[in-house]
């Protein structure tokens, strides 16, 4: 069997396997073929990784709970050897209590659920709509009580009704700076943001306005480390109000109320807490439900839905890389684009994910130009190769730090994201480009640099295409088909597009 037939048979085999799994999923298990519209469903995960110090451990954490306005479904606990008790009685929220008497080394606990978020128009529960008696605050410190009463009486006098009173309270606590009464009354034991919310709550409830501190997450975009936010809910003059310090989120989810800590633990150290969220497309949700329903069927092995969300997010990126590489192979073998390094353009394309395309191209070009300038300057000092490369790396880091500073001053968000821009790739690109520059010509160097940029952009566009992401993530068996295409392209002996230009002189048509 010659190698051509061999390759074709292998490619055929891979395609058949890949497409049959794909077809089975679509026909037999009704996997949807399009991403579908976005819904307000989110995958939520709490991931706790900690050192047990070999002593008994008790770890409590608030977890999302169902209420009139919030929905939690498909809850899963990954306890390992730990005992789990759920405390649902507390008014502040549902608590998961993990305990274990003889642990050793590091342990991991996980909680997963699917959430339906809340918005500003979500009503507060009925219990919040009962007007309270005005009451003096409970505090043992007479001086504080005095200050509190004077301040709240003053606020009451300056307001017309409950709503304007609440506005005034929030204004003085959060917006106006250095209001002496506020500074004096803030609880020293709580973190600043929460103590302000707690003070606002105390003033409002003392004035008979139902109020409480709410804690939870903002559902804005997929995050591997979502922040816990705190805000105030109150009911004034027959309407629900929420006050978010900072920017108002469009969608959020309340996990617990009050000023308790999210995690309370005994006997552990070095806790790594990750709260991750990921929006679930309607169709993806269907897929996941289908997988859950067909538990035990073979199809669940051809997907990532059973992995932890943090891992899923990583795989969502990884499975698109072969598509970018397919693009690169095509551009090199059929078009004949010249690039610096073999897979470097795809790596640059991945880096563009952090910066978005236009910013990425600008940054890439600017950093390469600066780096090249330094590289040529260093040439005059006649340094050895590795120390010279190292100098360029340090220079690139400095440039990136400066860019981050400039960007944050002008309020641009890309300043933060370029920190992940792989600078080693940049440095290698600079080094290769400068060698091409010296040994061939500036034209060649710029040509190859532009080629790399072009391939990187194409790879980026392909890899971030929602349809590509959807198909690769939910139908990873298509990787076999990509492999088959690569095999077949490996046997292409025809001319490249660039060769039609290069050898134009041999075109004897008149």
């Amino acid at each position, binding site marked *: 069997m010659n190698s051509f037939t061999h390759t074709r048979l292998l490619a055929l085999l891979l395609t058949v396997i890949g497409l049959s799994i794909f077809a089975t999923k679509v026909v037999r298990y009704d996997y949807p073929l399009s991403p579908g519209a976005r819904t307000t469903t989110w995958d939520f995960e709490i991931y706790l990784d900690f050192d047990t110090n070999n002593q008994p451990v008790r770890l409590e954490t608030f977890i999302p709970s169902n209420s009139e306005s919030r929905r939690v479904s498909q809850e899963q606990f990954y306890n390992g050897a730990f005992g789990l008790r759920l405390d649902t009685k507390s008014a502040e929220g549902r608590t998961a209590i993990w305990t274990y008497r003889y642990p050793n080394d590091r342990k991991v606990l996980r909680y997963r659920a699917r959430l339906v978020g809340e918005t500003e128009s979500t009503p507060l529960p009925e219990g919040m709509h009962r007007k309270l008696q005005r009451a003096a605050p409970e505090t043992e410190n007479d001086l504080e009580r005095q200050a509190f009463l004077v301040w709240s009486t003053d606020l009451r006098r300056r307001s017309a009704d409950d709503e304007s009173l609440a506005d005034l309270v929030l204004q003085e606590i959060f917006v106006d700076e250095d209001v002496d009464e506020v500074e004096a009354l803030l609880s020293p034991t709580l973190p600043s943001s929460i103590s302000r919310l707690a003070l606002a709550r105390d003033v409002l409830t003392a004035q008979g306005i139902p109020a409480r501190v709410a804690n939870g997450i903002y559902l804005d975009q997929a995050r591997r480390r979502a922040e816990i936010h705190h805000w105030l809910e109150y009911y004034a003059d027959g309407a629900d109000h929420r006050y978010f310090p900072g920017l108002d989120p469009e969608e959020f989810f309340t996990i617990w109320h009050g000023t308790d800590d999210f995690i309370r633990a005994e006997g552990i150290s070095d806790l790594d807490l990750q709260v991750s969220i990921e929006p679930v497309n309607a169709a993806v949700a269907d897929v996941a439900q289908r997988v859950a329903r067909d538990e035990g069927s073979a199809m669940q092995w051809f997907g990532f839905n059973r992995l932890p969300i943090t891992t899923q997010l990583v795989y969502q990126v990884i499975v698109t890389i072969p598509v970018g590489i397919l693009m690169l192979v095509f551009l090199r073998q059929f078009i004949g684009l010249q690039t610096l390094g073999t897979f470097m353009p795809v790596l640059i394309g991945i880096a563009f994910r952090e910066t978005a395309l236009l910013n990425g191209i600008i940054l890439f070009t600017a950093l390469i130009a600066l780096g090249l300038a330094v590289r040529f300057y260093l040439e005059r000092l006649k340094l*050895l190769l*590795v120390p010279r490369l190292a100098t360029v790396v340090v220079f690139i880091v400095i440039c990136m730090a400066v860019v981050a500073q400039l960007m944050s001053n002008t309020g641009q968000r890309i300043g933060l994201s370029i920190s992940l821009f792989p600078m080693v790739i940049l440095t290698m690109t600079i080094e290769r480009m400068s060698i091409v520059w010296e*040994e061939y*010509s500036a034209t*060649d160097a710029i040509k190859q640099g532009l080629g790399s940029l072009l391939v990187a952009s194409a790879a980026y566009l392909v890899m971030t295409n929602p349809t590509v992401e959807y198909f690769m993530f939910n139908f990873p068996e298509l990787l076999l088909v990509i492999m088959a295409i690569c095999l077949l392209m490996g*046997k292409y002996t025809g*001319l490249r*597009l660039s*060769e039609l230009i290069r050898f134009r002189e041999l*075109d004897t048509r008149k």
Partner: protein
Amino acid sequence: MIGRYRALRRAGLLGINERNLRLVNELNPRRLIRLVDDKRETKRLAMAAGIPTPELYGVIANPFHMRHLESYLDKPDGVVIKPANGSQGNGIQVLMEPMRGGWRRSNGQRAMLEDIRFHVNNILSGMYSLSGQPDVAMFEYRVKFDEIFNPISFGGVPDIRIIVVRGIPAVAMVRLPTAESDGKANLHKGGVGVGLDLVTGKTLSGMQNGKTTDIHPDTANPLKNFSVPHWDAMLEMAAKAYDVTGLGYLGADIVLDKGKGPLLLELNARPGLAIQIANRIGIRPLLNATLEADTEGMDALARVELARKLYRQNVPEVV
């Protein structure tokens, strides 16, 4: 575009993809390519087989050897410094002769000892080697080229490239230095490539920077009808290079020294395709014939005869 594609295919043009698949991958096993990537190894093999090469004065393989540098450079006729694993002529420095405070380079500039030491350090650190691996600097006899090509070259050494397939010389060209190429005979630096009739060793028309030309850009003399001296010997050297390396697809680079005749400079396991423009032919038909030819039991001389026969059969004679 499609019309151009068809026309080029009809002209028998060989593309990079096909070269890589059918020639490099099929005929050049990786372990053999190593032999020619290291020029010291090539030189050793060639000498063992009686193929003449420029004399090796010495090698600097590590900074410790650097103390020999001045003795290697101390040659009244000049010296060539090259990386043992360099490619495409990168990192080669030609010193013509000693001059006050340094050495005169082929472009007339003066190189100081410090410049040369820096260059050798760059070579050692792998700047010019194929994969950035640490490399070795070689110091060689500087070829005093035959004056036959003087009317059609400008500074530097012209060389002859013969592509050999399965030990059968297939196509050849002369590469001429120009002002643009800084005295180097590399085509991608602006050197002129002139096709050679494989049977007679006579020059045909030429090309520079991918465009055909009939005159040398600097001297304005016509490129046609120069006879390369020692042509038979060169063909035999090229054919023998196959016997010593086992590479089924190779480019032999030969220079013509005034006193010593043809010398093998280096062998290339992935020779480029610009030779087709220089010869104004597509080489696929010739290549197919060469790939199918029966060479059982033939020595280098017999393969040269076969080469001439195949060439005449597959390439139209230019009158």
